[in-house]
């Protein structure tokens, strides 16, 4: 546990001692701010329009602002996750510092967990930045906070799974660009796997399996503000699977190198 924390702290320092963390946070904040402003603007103008027409259509800020926004955070995150994980192992392999880690009295799993936790913490910071926007909603309105919290939990679990996959891919190469590009491709595929169910194969067993594997499918319940153990278990097992593959990959690194 102590060793995991040492590695995690070192990774956090690498993120925050270089421009990486600030750049990612800024870009994330900016892009999310743009989404927030537009969706909220649309919501407000709809509200004004419905009042002018004299219709008092019930408008729900949770349903019409928070829910689409959270779904968008997930999509924006998809672009940022490869940027977070691509350097984790690829850079250590390129500079040779992996030799230091592997010959130190710590286990592979401690290294992997430390690195993944650091990636999780950085992503957590990014989510916190987006939470600032929502704080305004609470100042001027009365949204229900529980679906928001559950939505964030779902986002965080989803990111954890994709970050674990990215960590694994980063062990496969010395080249950060390759690690990043492959991670992006894999995450995107995991994302859109569920489209298969709309392609006329709804009843085929394999299509159902593929569709089940899609990360976005399992976000639905969280987005609705429901805490579904089935979906949480999906994310947690994907996290375990990714970290397990990372461990195997690190082991094979030694046998091959």
């Amino acid at each position, binding site marked *: 546990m102590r060793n995991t924390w040492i590695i995690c702290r070192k990774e956090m*320092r690498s993120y925050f001692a270089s421009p990486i963390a600030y750049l990612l946070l800024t870009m994330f904040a900016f892009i999310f701010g743009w989404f927030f402003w537009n969706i909220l603007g649309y919501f407000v103008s709809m509200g004004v329009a419905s009042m002018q027409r004299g219709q008092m259509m019930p408008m729900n800020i949770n349903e019409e602002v928070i829910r689409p926004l959270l779904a968008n955070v997930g999509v924006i995150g998809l672009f940022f996750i490869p940027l977070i994980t691509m350097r984790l192992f690829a850079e250590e392999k390129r500079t040779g*510092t992996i*030799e*230091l*880690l*592997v*010959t130190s*009295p710590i286990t592979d799993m401690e290294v992997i967990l430390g690195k993944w936790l650091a990636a999780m913490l950085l992503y957590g910071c990014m989510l916190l930045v987006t939470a600032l926007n929502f704080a305004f909603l609470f100042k001027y309105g009365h949204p229900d906070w529980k679906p928001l919290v559950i939505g964030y939990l779902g986002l965080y679990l989803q990111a954890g799974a994709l970050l674990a996959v990215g960590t694994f891919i980063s062990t496969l190469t010395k080249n950060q660009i390759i690690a990043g590009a492959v991670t992006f491709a894999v995450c995107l595929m995991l994302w859109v796997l569920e489209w298969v169910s709309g392609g006329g194969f709804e009843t085929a067993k394999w299509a159902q399996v593929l569709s089940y594997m899609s990360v976005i499918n399992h976000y639905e319940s969280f987005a609705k503000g429901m805490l579904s153990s089935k979906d949480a278990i999906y994310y947690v097992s994907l996290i375990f699977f990714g970290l397990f593959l990372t461990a195997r990959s690190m082991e094979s690194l*030694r046998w091959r190198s």
Partner: protein
Amino acid sequence: MITVSELTKRYARHTAVDSISFNVEKGQIVGFLGPNGAGKTTTMRILTCFMPPTSGTAQVAGFDVLEQPLEVKKRIGYLPENPPLYPEMSTTEYLSFVGSLKGLSGAELRQRIDYVSDRCAVADVKDKLLGKLSKGYRQRVGLAQAIIHNPDVLILDEPTAGLDPKQINETRDLIKSLAGDHTIVLSTHILPEVEQICQQVIIINKGKLVATDSVNNLQNRARGVESLLVEVAGRNGNIDPAAVQRRLEQINGISRVVVKDNRHNRWIFEVDSRKDTLVRGDLARAVVEAGWDLNELRTAAVSLEEIFLQLTGDQPSAPAPEAVPTGAN
């Protein structure tokens, strides 16, 4: 302290290390010598638990590298060929990170950081980023991280590679000064380095063990006879080298005389003599009495280089000196 037996590492297409066995006693400095690609780095990586051997065993401080890698790693300080530095960390941050990885904490960690910074002369760059350090400093920071947890065994892969001559000397002195507390294995392809620093030398070539012995023994092995270099010049500027050669060959105790070089009428002869005879006096007298000038008379150092070439057989070299019958005139 280190026991290696029948160690083999095979890759898909070639064998990097081929059933090597050797022992290293506590407190010694051992030179791991071989041309590039001989399997030095591979052997060191197995000893440091970076990679497992294909077959054979290696033990460090009584622990097997396969069975108890964590125990081995606790007792080893390792400096890979390229110091494993994080460019975005300062020297102190880095040493603190490595120290805590190796299990140090609190006051002990701080004290060790101060100690190794001092010992490796990196205290003056303690707040500098590692990415901005010169090659010499990078190497010293690398050494500092290797000794931070006061390991029993130090494994240094080409510690002087890429340094300038002054830095090479400093690094060698530093390594020598560490010998008391640690058992040191260092790899190199520079022969004089081994002569200067090490007590024992392990020579490998193409993955195979060629020789393992103390540096003194190896030198003596090639020195059953002593080679002397004699430079002779004529008074009037002209001498007949054949005459000199004949005269020298008559001296009691000299077994072989060959012309080595000739510069502006100064002739250099290589003379093999029995080690225990007092040939030098006779030799000097003979030259002077014949009316020639004796410009220089010195021992031709038998370098490890020659031994190395003889042992690895990379190049056809002069017949082994042992072959020369010592009593012959």
